[in-house]
């Protein structure tokens, strides 16, 4: 199916209920769906299991912790080793109010890719002999031992890109790609905020980063002003 165009980020979240599993695209400030995160905040959805590269580090995800909307996160960067500049999420994690599964960044993105591509998991050397390997199976292939990492999928992916056409073809800009095109394949409902929606045919097929088949909803929003963390 091709995409439906929504007028506002709040309307684009139609039908999302409590206990939802949500992937959030973005790496720190780049490619982060800030308008959709703020709409989710206004919606008051609770019990969210979030999946994102980072929380509390140049993203707006930490705002979902203001009223305890997050039940937990799967992330690669969430807790700082230094005691400086704690996020709300980190405070809530240390008080045992939210769960956290840390995944190495390359493993995280490949688990999502596996989930989106219909694959049963990822075999990787990353994490062997570390706390990441605890409780996980190892598999030997061609004489090499690998850690078996399971695929990740979500109910909803909230993503950000530069432009979309009305079919839902998506064009990214600069390092705003990051996790967005991978997460676009791994959720039942894919919602993308873009800086501009254009007519079909205006995006050169060579520049389409995510084809319309993966995209359900698009919404045009002025980017939220964010700053370096």
């Amino acid at each position: 199916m091709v995409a439906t165009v929504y007028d506002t980020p709040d309307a684009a979240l139609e039908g999302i209920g409590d206990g939802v599993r949500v992937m959030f695209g973005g790496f720190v400030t780049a490619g982060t769906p800030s308008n959709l995160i703020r709409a989710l905040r206004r919606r008051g959805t609770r019990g969210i299991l979030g999946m994102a590269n980072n929380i509390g580090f140049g993203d707006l995800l930490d705002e979902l912790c203001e009223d305890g909307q997050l039940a937990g996160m799967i992330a690669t960067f969430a807790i700082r080793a230094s005691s400086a500049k704690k996020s709300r999420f980190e405070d809530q994690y240390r008080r045992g109010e939210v769960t956290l599964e840390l995944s190495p960044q390359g493993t995280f993105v490949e688990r999502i890719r596996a989930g989106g591509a219909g694959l049963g998991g990822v075999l990787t050397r990353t994490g062997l002999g570390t706390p990441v390997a605890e409780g996980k199976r190892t598999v030997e292939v061609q004489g090499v031992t690998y850690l078996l990492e399971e695929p990740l999928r979500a109910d909803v992916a909230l993503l950000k890109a530069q432009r979309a056409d009305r079919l839902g073809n998506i064009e990214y800009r600069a390092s705003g790609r990051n996790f967005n095109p991978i997460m676009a394949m791994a959720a039942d409902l894919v919602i993308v905020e873009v800086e501009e929606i254009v007519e079909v045919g205006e995006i050169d097929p060579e520049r389409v980063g995510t084809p319309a088949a993966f995209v359900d909803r698009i919404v045009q929003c002025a980017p939220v002003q964010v700053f370096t963390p």
Partner: protein
Amino acid sequence: MTTHPAGLPRELIALRVSHELRRGMVVNLGIGVPTLVPSHLPADHGVLFQSENGILGLAGLDYSGAFDPEHINAGGQAITLVSGASFFDSATSFAMIRGGHVDVSVLGGLQVASNGDLANWMVPERGGGSMGGAMDLASGAKRLIVAMDHVTREGTSRLLARCTYPLTAQACTDLVVTNLAVIEITPDGFLLREVAPGVTVEQVIAATDAPLLVAPDVREMTL
């Protein structure tokens, strides 16, 4: 508390690391001391710096003050690009990192063991930490250089027979550059190659909490 010589400041550790890089190499730099490395290379260095968030061809930090949220490095800082740079998604970025397409990875460290184990992401007594891309970088790069202080603020060695902190990756380190020494990881353990100016071999041995082999041609670092 044992006292050890101060040795090199962070900037000079970075300078020594820069001597390991060659034209045409693809190099990833971690946060901390490694980010200081590029400023010590000549202007036409020809090294392609990779950033895990999906950039190959990072030039340096952008001091213009115009912050573009989609032109950032892995630490979220504004960056500039070299001519010939490219952008890509995170799966491609980590295929580059994990598939052995990065020639050298330079990471900061908390502890390195004589078999090459690295611990650099979690401080148990502070109750946390996050690995980000460090585990992938440590296990995937063709050559891993760890740049760190030789001892902790309390004077205990960061070079150990076995790491006591949770690992980043097993047997992954090739070279350690510290404020006191350049040490290679060999099948026989730590091998002292170079000492910092003003630092003696005996002082490096005293600051290392593991057997330390001394190269027959051990010399003072060229900076």
